[in-house]
């Protein structure tokens, strides 16, 4: 979603071999719900797209049902991103599936250098059954720990394979490795699309503030005045660990329209030139998000 001309949001997905990246990517493609996704892979292994999703494939680009595509960036990520942003086909989101040896933050730095795209967040996947053993691996230990530390969101996959107690223990251990990133427990790679890709903001326009029946717990904040946008973004990112994502617009005290993006504990703000209604959609983890949990926030927003 090339929001307000700021560039296509780019999410970096990583995690060690076997964490379930491919399953998760296919889940997102199957549940794109009209969003046009582009998946960029730097693959050493098999193609990470389920065969039944593939509509056509040439050497460079694989077309996927629903207008999504997949291509390999080889060693030149910048070029691949530039090409994507310049494509005729409108693309809502780019997902970079990084290899197991990747330093996701380095990839995100590179994304930051390319015009037409916008760093969104780093999502790291871990297998509930194997992550702690993998993180002790003779060779891959520091690489895996660095990936966990780079995460804005940590997705704990395959929790059905372990006991609840083990999920708790592993989650605590993950929190020790990265105290800022929300931890999202899932099975079979089935994560809410909105949590990974953050396409929640259009709900503001579609339905207004409400709670979806399905999907993650959602809360839409509708500021009624010009506010301190930076403080709002910081507060959402740092003080509300049960908010996985937040995205939307607000008007700052100088009257400028600002895009707020929060992914876990990472936030960014950008001045937007378009005229858009104010409203920030928050996606919660675990318990339902309720306004009473957000007293300080509401005070800030003067709602």
């Amino acid at each position, binding site marked *: 979603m090339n929001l307000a001309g700021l560039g296509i949001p780019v999410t970096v997905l990583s995690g060690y*071999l076997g964490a379930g990246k491919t399953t998760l990517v296919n889940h997102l493609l199957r549940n794109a719900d009209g969003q046009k996704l582009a998946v960029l892979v*730097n*693959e*050493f*292994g*098999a193609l990470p797209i389920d065969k039944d999703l593939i509509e056509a494939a040439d050497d460079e680009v694989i077309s996927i049902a629903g207008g999504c595509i997949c291509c*390999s960036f*080889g*060693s*030149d*990520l*910048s*070029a691949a991103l530039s090409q994507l942003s310049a494509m005729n086909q409108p693309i809502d989101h780019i997902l970079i599936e990084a*290899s*197991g*040896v990747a*330093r996701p933050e*380095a990839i995100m*730095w*590179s994304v*930051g*250098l*390319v*015009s037409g795209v916008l760093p969104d967040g780093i999502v790291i996947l871990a297998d509930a059954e194997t992550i702690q053993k993998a993180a002790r691996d*003779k*060779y*891959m230990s*520091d*690489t895996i720990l660095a990936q966990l530390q780079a995460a804005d969101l940590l997705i704990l996959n395959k929790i059905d394979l372990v006991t609840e107690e083990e999920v708790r223990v592993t989650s605590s251990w993950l929190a020790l490795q990265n105290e800022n990133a929300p931890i999202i427990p899932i099975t079979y790679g089935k994560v809410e699309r909105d949590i990974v890709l953050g396409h929640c903001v259009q709900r503001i326009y579609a339905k207004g503030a409400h709670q979806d029946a399905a999907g993650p717990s959602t809360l839409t904040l509708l500021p009624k005045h010009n506010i301190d946008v930076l403080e709002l973004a910081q507060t959402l990112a740092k003080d509300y660990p049960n908010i996985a994502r937040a995205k939307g617009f607000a008007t700052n005290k100088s009257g400028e329209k600002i895009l707020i993006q929060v992914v876990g504990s990472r936030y960014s703000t950008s001045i937007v030139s378009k005229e858009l209604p104010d409203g920030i959609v928050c996606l919660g983890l675990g318990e339902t998000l309720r306004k009473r949990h957000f007293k300080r926030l509401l005070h800030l927003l003067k709602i």
Partner: protein
Amino acid sequence: MGKIRIFSAKKIITMNPNQPETTHVAVREGRILSTGTLEELAIWDDYTLDETFHNKILIPGLVEGHAHVMAGALWRHVYCGYFDRADPDGNMWQGSKTIADVIELLQVAESKLKYPALPLAGWQFDPIYMDNQRVTRSDLDQVSATRPVGVLHASGHILNVNSKALELADLLRPGINHPGIPLDKDGLPTGELYGPDAIGPVSKYVGFDRASMEGDADALRAFGKICVRSGVTTITDLAARITEESVDKMLEVTEHPTFPARIVPLRIFMGASAKDTIDLVLSLKERSTDQLRLGRIKAVADGSIQGFSARMRWPGYFNGAPNGLWYTLPEQLGELYRLALANGVQVHTHTNGDEATEMALDTLAPALNEVPSVDHRFTLQHCQLADAAQFRRMRNMKMCVNLFANHHFYWGDEHYRLTVGPERARRMNACRTALEMGVPMAIHSDAPITPLAPLFTAWCAVNRLTLSGRVQGDGEKISIQDALYAITLGAAYTLHLDGEIGSVEIGKKADFAVLEQDPIDIGGANIKDIEIWGTVQGGRVFQAKKL
């Protein structure tokens, strides 16, 4: 059946113990028909006696087991190195001793460029020898404010660019947030780009396009010329992104009657699955010719030591830098090894740090147990920090090693004081240990990382001198004889080519390096100074001066 041509020489060093030295060699159909005295050779058939080399020394054509076609490609740009160097056409380029020299050199080159939009690039810049002075875009703006200008450092890990280049790459703006792109007081990038991630988005704007970095037809031709000047008749292109299409071009160039080198490109394992890579090289292998030997793979385990991206075992980097980067997952490497062994494809693996070497050994061992192979010759390339225990494992696994002997000279002092410290600096590229442990060994230049010149590489392995003149690792010195072996039969062995090249023997390719001095007589301290007249390759004579 072709005619016999007998070359006479002052001395032919054959590397064949049955007849270590001789004076004549008969050549027919590009191959050595026989060696010996003229009387012995004359009885074969009619012949022409060629006395071109009557006062020269012939040795087997040298084999460079680790180089890149890029060594040819870079000469289309301005040579900004510290040392004097001859280009493929034999023009001598004086070394630039100061930043001002470099700027002036670029200004002269700029003045000769025709179109204002043309980029200008320099390479082999090495401010290590200039008190590590920094170069910013304002320095390079002196060369041109209107065309993009870039200067690549000798390490390949730093690129300095001017304002125009940044502007073209859309980086001349505030808000850049990248650890490899330092910002000036004004919030704009300084023009220094550190590391491939930062270099990548800009390099193409200054002229370092794909052809520059990986080679095209012109680059290959230039590469061939450099070979003649360095006595090389067979050379690898060790990390080629070969495709079915690019091979057409390579075949065209290498099959040309004046192309003077046998090229052995190794397809890099990157960006494609193990299976696809194996399938590709198996199909390429079928298209091999005498002059273009396809069908091998190069994998990369880690980065470089001087770039602090090599994977190190305890205690890690001497200066406390964090451990380096893996370039390939052990699982992916293991899959490649198993499939390659099963398909009879040879894999060379780049390992620099000793942890990367350990990982490669730990990965190959089970693959070999699963898919035994009696003569695979899987080779570790660089393998600079291997210790004796690792060489023992290599021997047991019948692996080969190609050590980066030139590193002592160019970065030995840095390794001593910065990257690995004195003890490991002394054991780096442990040629003697490799030989004593029984590991088949070659030595290499990694051209263009260091200049292609096997006799210089031999000198490095024999003397182990650093640039500052210190002997580093006296115990790892090898003899002249061992060094000559390493740059002929040793390197040929790592490519499964020792039956065809590497010695002057009946049936082998008529490949010779033609020298003005005898490497044995001249002594270990002076091998690097031997003048190279040219080569004979496949029986064809190539004089360096007349290229």
